[in-house]
């Protein structure tokens, strides 16, 4: 059991703020993919470090939860470590790096490689919740576009990529249609992770602190990456096995290892890579 920091409410936020977040979360689950405005609070870390995700986690977290936090798939980066420690201190919850034992996983820009279960909640840190933001700068206008399900401009954007490059050149934050109704930004997860959004057994919650929006995908919800019949969605992956665990299916990080052009491709999901190595899988560079 962790020592709880005295002088703060459970999980840092005051109860009125949590109720506001909880009401927004319930509506978000009832309207999959629709962005709900909320009164984002100032948190003890700057915007861009996961304030939206932290507020969502603080609103759902209970004393019996086991929290895992990943940053680009890694449990051991500054952002992941400090958020995990933040909740260990303010809520006294157990933390873990093991995907299977976590009940709440807060993530920045990845979905774990191991499939998630019905007993888990995945909380995304979202920098830009509006998928149409680069096509239409006015939030008033994009709100209307969502109301009318007017998503032609996004199809044009994909089409322009195809005419210019021969394929859709969006490698992360690839737009999806949720439940056949709302166009949604899946946060900057690689397009490689997009298929995992579809019919996921776990509840997915998205929090954007600076942009003050919350949205959600309930379990077992239809999520389709936007594409064309003659140019179906295709998730890319670096054509290498993981240098440490040899996985040929995981999403890889490219690491420069010397100043002579040496490169190492390793799993971005550190828990997945470590679990495989513990099970005896060995890559060429291990």
């Amino acid at each position, binding site marked *: 059991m962790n020592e709880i920091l005295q002088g703060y409410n459970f999980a840092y936020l005051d109860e009125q703020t949590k*109720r506001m977040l909880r009401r927004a979360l319930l509506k978000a689950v009832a309207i999959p993919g629709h962005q709900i405005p909320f009164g984002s609070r100032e948190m003890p870390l700057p915007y861009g470090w996961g304030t939206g995700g932290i507020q969502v986690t603080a609103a759902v977290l209970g004393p019996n939860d086991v929290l895992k936090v990943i940053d680009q798939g890694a449990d051991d980066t500054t952002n992941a470590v400090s958020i995990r420690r933040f909740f260990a201190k303010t809520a006294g919850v157990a933390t873990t790096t093991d995907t299977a034992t976590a009940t709440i996983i807060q993530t920045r820009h990845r979905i774990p490689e191991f499939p998630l279960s019905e007993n888990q909640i995945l909380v995304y840190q979202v920098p830009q919740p509006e998928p149409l933001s680069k096509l239409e700068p006015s939030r008033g206008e994009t709100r209307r576009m969502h109301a009318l399900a007017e998503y032609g401009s996004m199809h044009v954007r994909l089409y322009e990529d195809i005419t210019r490059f021969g394929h859709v050149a969006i490698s992360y934050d690839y737009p999806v249609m949720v439940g056949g109704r709302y166009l949604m930004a899946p946060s900057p997860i690689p397009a490689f992770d997009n298929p995992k959004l579809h019919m996921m057994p776990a509840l997915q919650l998205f929090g954007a602190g600076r942009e003050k929006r919350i949205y959600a995908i309930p379990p077992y919800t239809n999520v389709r990456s936007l594409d064309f019949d003659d140019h179906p969605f295709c998730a890319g992956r670096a054509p290498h096995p993981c240098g440490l665990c040899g996985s040929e299916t995981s999403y890889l990080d490219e690491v420069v290892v010397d100043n002579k052009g040496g490169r190492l491709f390793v799993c971005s999901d550190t828990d997945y890579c470590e679990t495989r190595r513990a099970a005896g899988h060995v890559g060429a560079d291990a």
Partner: protein
Amino acid sequence: MPVALVGFADPVLDAQACFRAVLDAMARPGSIHQVGGTLVAPASLCPAAAAVVLALVDGETSIFIDPAFADAADWVRFHCGVAPTPDASVAAFVLAPDLPDLRSLSCGSDEGPEDSATVIVQVAALGEGAVYTMMGPGLQYPRTFRATGLPVDFVARWAENHKLFPRGIDLILCAGDRLAALPRSLSITGG
């Protein structure tokens, strides 16, 4: 009138547990959850409905309380710090002993479908009685759901509500210390 009834024994953790139950109920429609077991609620309210009100309602939102629950009004006023609104059509939460006319409640706008009512309905029983079949987000396969105390024309009235999607009303059904939720995204047949 003095309010003799206490609220949650632990206002922070009990509210969290109740919210998680409602969140899971909303995310997996038809699933039944236990809440508010130890709560001493006003006589007309079941513990589950009382717990949901304590967990979600405060002075930043609005609640309409059906006259049948008049004895709960002061309790809500005291514990939630909100004066119940006399106008159900503008309320964010509606606390009712049976299914109200959903058309008379706020169903949100096309741009703000979240500005819609959540109706907390007290029913006779969950998990027994009329059989409904549901399909929608949150359900891998069509799922059956049983409840006693919904009106005989519930399926037709729900279809009218579901047709408005993404606008519409969300229901939280409470019986004793159990609750289940029906979000607007569900299509429901049977009865």
